[in-house]
């Protein structure tokens, strides 16, 4: 057996490490040390306090607490318009920016990408020009449909559909965005079965939309329903009491933007353009899966109807792999809150059951789908609001779908036609839409 060390092997460093491992050297384990804070499991309270004060870790912890107190008292972010803080340029960010430009829109449609995509694609067909959904959410096609049924109708309609949006996000939109000058007459809640029970979400407070929108309101009252498991709840409590955690995103954004601002001019001179910035057709087609988007990435073109079908069956199955009763019950509470919020603000809510493709419905357990429809019916009765089931009202076929769930322009047209017809036919919404608009009206 050879005994000399090979060329690669530790010698001096090794022996030092071994000594350390055995407890020798400067970091030796000292069972007789004066600073011992316990002996065989028995604490020594008499010397404990002195010992604690000598601890570098304790001193560091005290500094953190002091810094935290100082920041809580001075609150450098106080008075800053939450909307002006740098943030991830997510879908909800852009949509909110666009919505803030609208003065008292008549109709706001809320829902997930099932709504967002199809209505936007139809918008390009209707206008016969390109529409950038990132920055242009007005739906003139819905306005034209309503005009067809209500003579002299005036007012804007807005598509607030967001990729991955849950009912809880819809509530947050209603709570934070439907304020003075921005309160619609009618809120159309377009819900598919996923929007109440998506298995890929952990809790209501985890979505990008929720995280963005909570900067506009104090969400303490939502703690129990927004964070249903222990960890997010603890995290929320930490945010309440630790300034560094509460202002984490603000600080990250501010520092990031400042760093970019300082360095970009320098790198503009020395760095070459990156090929990563060139968006491919694939990037553009599936931009709604991205957390951060930019202007121009998602543009609908007129006459672009194709028969292409994207097989997202795996994702679809994942979202419906179980009935997720817990999530459903939770989202039902949010649905109640959303409808109450609308009523309290004088908005008429309208519930719409979104269509599902014949392929997609095969993967939704029948009892889950029935539960979804029954809930919408129940809610419409409870809140005395119009309800329309597009699966009964419209004749959707696979040509209207671009994957298991999302529709293209033809599907969008059918949806908007049904919604427009319903709004005009129902006396409650008809009255609201024909009432004269007063400048700056709306509840706060």
């Amino acid at each position, binding site marked *: 057996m050879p005994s000399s060390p090979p060329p*690669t092997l530790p010698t001096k*460093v090794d022996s030092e490490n071994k000594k350390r491992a055995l407890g020798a050297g400067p970091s030796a*384990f000292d069972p007789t040390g004066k600073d011992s804070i316990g002996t065989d499991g028995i604490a020594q309270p008499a010397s404990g306090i002195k010992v604690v004060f000598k601890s*570098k870790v304790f001193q560091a912890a005290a500094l953190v607490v002091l810094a935290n107190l100082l920041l809580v008292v001075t609150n450098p972010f106080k008075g800053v318009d939450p909307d002006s803080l740098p943030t991830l340029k997510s879908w909800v960010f852009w949509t909110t920016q666009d919505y803030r430009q609208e003065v008292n829109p008549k109709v706001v449609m809320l829902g997930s990408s099932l709504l967002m995509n199809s209505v936007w694609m139809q918008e390009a067909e209707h206008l016969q020009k390109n529409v950038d959904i990132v920055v242009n959410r007005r739906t003139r096609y819905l306005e034209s449909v309503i005009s067809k049924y209500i003579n002299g109708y005036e007012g804007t309609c807005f598509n607030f559909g967001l990729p991955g949006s849950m009912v809880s996000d819809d509530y947050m939109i209603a709570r934070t965005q439907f304020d003075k000058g921005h309160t619609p007459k009618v809120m159309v809640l377009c819900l598919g079965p996923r929007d109440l029970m998506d298995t890929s979400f952990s809790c209501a407070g985890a979505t990008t939309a929720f995280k963005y929108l909570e900067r506009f309101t104090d969400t303490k009252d939502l703690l129990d329903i927004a964070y249903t498991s222990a960890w997010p709840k603890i995290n929320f409590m930490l945010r309440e009491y*630790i300034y560094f955690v509460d202002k984490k995103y603000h600080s990250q954004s501010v520092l990031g933007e400042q760093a970019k601002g300082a360095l970009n001019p320098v790198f503009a001179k020395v760095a070459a353009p990156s090929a990563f910035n060139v968006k491919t057709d694939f990037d553009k087609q599936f931009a709604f899966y991205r957390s951060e988007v930019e202007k121009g990435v998602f543009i609908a073109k007129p006459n672009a109807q194709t028969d292409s079908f994207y097989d997202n069956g795996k994702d679809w199955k994942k979202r419906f792999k179980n009935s997720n009763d817990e999530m459903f019950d939770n989202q039902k509470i949010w649905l109640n809150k959303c409808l109450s919020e609308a009523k309290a603000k004088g908005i008429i809510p309208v519930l719409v059951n979104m269509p599902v493709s014949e392929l997609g419905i095969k993967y939704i357990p029948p009892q889950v789908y029935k539960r979804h429809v029954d809930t919408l019916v129940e809610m419409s009765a409870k809140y005395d609001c119009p309800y329309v089931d597009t699966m009964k009202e419209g004749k959707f076929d696979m040509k209207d779908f671009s994957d298991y769930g999302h529709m293209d322009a033809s599907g969008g047209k059918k949806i908007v036609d049904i919604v427009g017809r319903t709004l005009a036919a129902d006396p409650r919404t008809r009255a609201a839409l024909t009432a004269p608009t007063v400048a700056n009206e709306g509840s706060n």
Partner: protein
Amino acid sequence: MLFNSAAYLVFLPVVVAIYWFMPFRYRTAFLLLASYVFYMTWKPIYLVLIVALTAFNYFAGIAIEKQKKQRKLVLIASLAANILTLAYFKYAYFAIDATNSVLAIAGRKISYPLHEIILPLGISFFVFEFIHYLVDVYKGSPAVKAPLEFALFPSFFPTQIAGPIKRFQDFVPQLHKPAKITLKDFDEGVELILWGLFKKVIVADSIAVVIDKCMPHPEMLSTFDCWSLLWAFAIQVYFDFSGYTDIARGSAALLGFKVPLNFNLPFLAGSITEYWRRWHISLSLWLRDYLFFPLGGSKHGTIATLRNVMITFTLAGLWHGAGLNYIIFGAMHGLWLNLNRLWRIQVEKSTTLLKLTETKAFHCFGVLLTFNCLAVTLVTFRLPSMELSGRYFQKLLMLSPQTANSVNPWAMTIPSIEGPANFALFPVILISIVIGHLISNQIQGKSQPGVLPLPKSLQALRPAYLAAIAILLLLFAPDGTPSFVYFQF
């Protein structure tokens, strides 16, 4: 349960508190229970595996010790059982897949069914600890008789998943003394955990954003970008793995245990040989004692030594994962080590060369060369597909076919990428990490070659330094819990 998860930040203090307030005689049992709970949080069923392997090796160790005539046979059989278990979980899928590929190439229609095998966390590490135990008992070390003590050796939760690979002669005696925890141990433990989290969360994960986006797309990068990414990836892996090790050592320190050092500023190594004395030290020691020496070590001439080094490091590559890419990764290290050995043979023969190698300038050159040699090996380590690795190497060596859309090889494009601040800050991050790491080591009281120590008065800044780390962690901790690079091994 990952060290950088919120669950661990609760688990550890609870275990530490109960441990120190528990009578000494129950502490081993309690730590074993805690370690098994820690393991079960990942996949409860694999607890059966670690318990079964522990029981098997416990009895195997005693059998080796007691046997007079059949000792070698028992050793070989028990080593084979351990290696086959590791091979099944780690290499069976790869082997069947490779066999099917060969059969397909040979035109045979037969193919063996592939079933996905989930690799039990930490298996590579605890199997190595069992092998060390069996071999050392065979060589004369007394076997561990207390079953709970033996069971705790591989499963000790701070080192369970990714080492450092312990030696039972160091670990088990620590279970015997009724230890007290000193203030120094407590401070050292918490500092190590904080520093490890900082390395992982702030440094490694920030770089990972850039690496994950860019490295798999060499065609969109310049040659300069490709080299920068390799340097950055080397730094990422170091901060990720050494961050993990710091948390492991810190957690162990809070329980009154010392576990081996795994890193000693490896990027300051002046040669690849020295690098392996500073990088993943517990693995390199294991490889020396249980692979290189049994192969014959360096006792049988230059050619045999070169061969043994090559075999040792190729197998070390395979230990990292089942795939040709890992084999090439290990073989490249073997190649660099052998070239370094041949160079040193030449140096020893020439006085001029010897003098040259003793100069500071040559040492600096050696540091840069070593770092770049190491960086090159990381191409196959990071990119699982050989085809992709090939394209990356082409770009590195400026051998990619030039087209009208080709990026200027000397251009720096990464800072122009739109997205999080990481891209814009990329060069700044890399430079500041190097400087920051040197300064922080000084504040922590760790000396390093070629760097002047900080004045003692600045050591008083230590609490402020720790507070700054804690605040940065609070400010920049991600919402998710990114895994450690070495967890997959």
